[in-house]
């Protein structure tokens, strides 16, 4: 079978980038005890706001900054609902996703409705024509900067310790003088920023334009990845790479003569099947963060 193996590895890194960024964002939230189901909407809002601001300003950097700010605000909004108002986290998260996607589609219609969507300046590939290493800057940043920083921060800094403490046992953290609500807001702000960065990667690096449904469920894949990784950073990186590898592999396999006979639906489902199987194998006897899904009120 004539597969292009180097291209496969390159595609794996590209496809994994938005998943890794958003999944790390989700991991930070969940380690603080907050399931942020606003992830899909936050990615979408990051993708759209990055695109729209890049279009207005002519600079992908300005677009990226705008996307990060929008992501942070989206995270704080989920915080307002779940921490400030004590709303059920499932409802708050899904409501946020619906709100953000509908708002972006609405603004998109007002701004670009009917006509063709403009091309915006985008980030170019680094090391063009080098196999595997030819990637966007955000891919390098995600794997070489953000993942290690999240890993070290959670494991070895005071802030990381406080964040994990409010996710495991907010009463004890509170008694020890940790500001529970403040720490959780910070986790959501950081998480939202990372999710939006994942979305902005789609519009500002991969495409340089925007279409409806651009995230296409990637946020939900990230939720599964975080559980699959048991809320640890290195397995999140591995999970994102695994999903992306199978996705890149099926894109190559469907166009080989050997696999022409296999129903396409099976091939397209393959990455999802792999994630579900991986979850079924590793996801038994999960130990959730101790205060997962629980609002905290000082009694």
């Amino acid at each position, binding site marked *: 079978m004539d597969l292009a193996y180097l291209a496969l590895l390159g595609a794996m890194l*590209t496809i994994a980038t938005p998943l890794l960024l958003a999944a790390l964002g989700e991991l930070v939230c969940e380690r603080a005890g907050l399931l942020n189901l606003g992830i899909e909407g936050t990615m979408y809002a990051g993708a759209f706001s990055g695109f729209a601001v890049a279009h207005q300003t002519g600079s992908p950097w300005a677009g990226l900054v705008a996307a990060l700010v929008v992501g942070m605000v989206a995270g704080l909004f989920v915080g307002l609902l779940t921490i400030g108002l004590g709303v059920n986290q499932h409802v708050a998260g899904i409501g946020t996703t*619906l*709100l953000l996607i509908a708002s972006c*589609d609405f603004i998109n*219609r007002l701004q670009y409705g009917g006509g063709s969507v403009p091309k915006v300046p985008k980030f170019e590939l680094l090391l063009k024509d080098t196999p595997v290493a030819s990637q966007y800057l955000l891919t390098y940043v995600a794997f070489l900067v953000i993942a290690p920083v999240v890993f070290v921060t959670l494991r070895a800094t005071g802030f990381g310790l406080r964040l994990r403490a409010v996710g495991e046992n907010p009463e004890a953290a509170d008694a020890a003088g940790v500001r529970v609500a403040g720490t959780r807001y910070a986790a959501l702000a950081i998480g939202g920023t990372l999710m939006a960065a994942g979305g902005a990667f789609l519009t500002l690096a991969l495409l340089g334009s925007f279409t409806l449904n651009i995230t296409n469920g990637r946020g939900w894949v990230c939720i599964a990845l975080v559980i699959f990784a048991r809320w640890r950073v290195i397995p999140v990186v591995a999970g994102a790479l695994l999903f992306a590898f199978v996705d890149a592999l099926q894109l190559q396999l469907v*166009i080989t003569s050997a696999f022409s006979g296999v129903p396409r639906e099976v091939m397209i489902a393959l990455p999802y099947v792999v994630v579900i199987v991986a979850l079924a194998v590793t996801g038994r006897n999960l130990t959730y963060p101790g*205060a997962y899904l629980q609002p*905290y*009120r000082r009694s």
Partner: protein
Amino acid sequence: MSAPCSAQPDRSRGHSRMRRSRRFAGLSALIAVALLAAACGGNTGDSKGSSSDVPLVYGVFATPLEEPWDGAIHTALKAADADGDIVYKYTDNNDSPDKMTRTLRDLIANEEPDIIFGDAFAAEDAVREVAADSEDTTFVFGSGEKPAGPNLSTFDNWMQDPAYLAGMLSGGMTTSNVIGVVAALPIPEVNRIVNAYIEGVKETNPQATVKVTFINSFFDPTTAKQAALAQVSQGADILFAERAGVIEAAVEKDLPVIGMMVDQKDEAPENVVTSLVWNMRPTIDHVVDKVKAGSLPSTDLAEFSFMKHDGSSLAPINTDVPGGVPDELLQQIDDKKAAILDGSFETPVDEDAPAGSTTVGE
């Protein structure tokens, strides 16, 4: 997700019942706002008064207008409105049969449109049921099925003619003898375009292999781009972008690419060699003329999308693309186009799903 659901909060102590209900009210209000925003997906066009001699035409679309297929109809109807031939209003995102039914019945009762254009693929039965109950309204719907009753005519994007010509062009341009096609879903209206394209490749290059990827979505340009890059990694040196995202891959790899639906040359002037263009205007003009003259009997309007009726075309060929286009090939395509227009060549129509990899000569 059942495990987290069962671990519902039980540590939040010390609320008074009063505070809890105030919070509940706040939450309800927020959810209501969120749902309202989500429900406002469907947009209605500007309202204008309808005078008796200019028919009121409604576009009732299942997908958002941003989808290129409905976008092509919308663009043509807007142009007809600007020319003063019709008064045009629209609604989109009627993406389920019940929504489609409700929208159609509501419109017919309240606005009494003379003609309704739309796409019935996602709601064939619903559209047919409403049409049967509303014989005073002319229904013109994109459909995979036959016309029905006295008032339901059908059309579709029958673009096999420009697809065949684009295939000839691709077959003549490739030097690796590998060609990539990225398309939405293996449904008849997509299959016949891809199959005609493959037939065209066969005419100019019987050694070529055509690789076809379906991304299973109308909107997923990032996956479409990755699919195109996978084809390039397996040797494809010219791409057919049935979906958005492929042109970006062609730009990245500096390869020629064929666009779809509208002339996409502006998106990448150094890479887009031509585009398959769908022009709904002949279909619309025929329908409006008939309705103005009395009524349109239920008709299969397919041929109004054919090249010979100017319903579809190949955009002007851009020779400033990587590798260039040989003059001899341009002549061959011109000759074939003339044969299509004078009726001496009829492009074959095949609606079966093409294979992931087809060596055309075999």
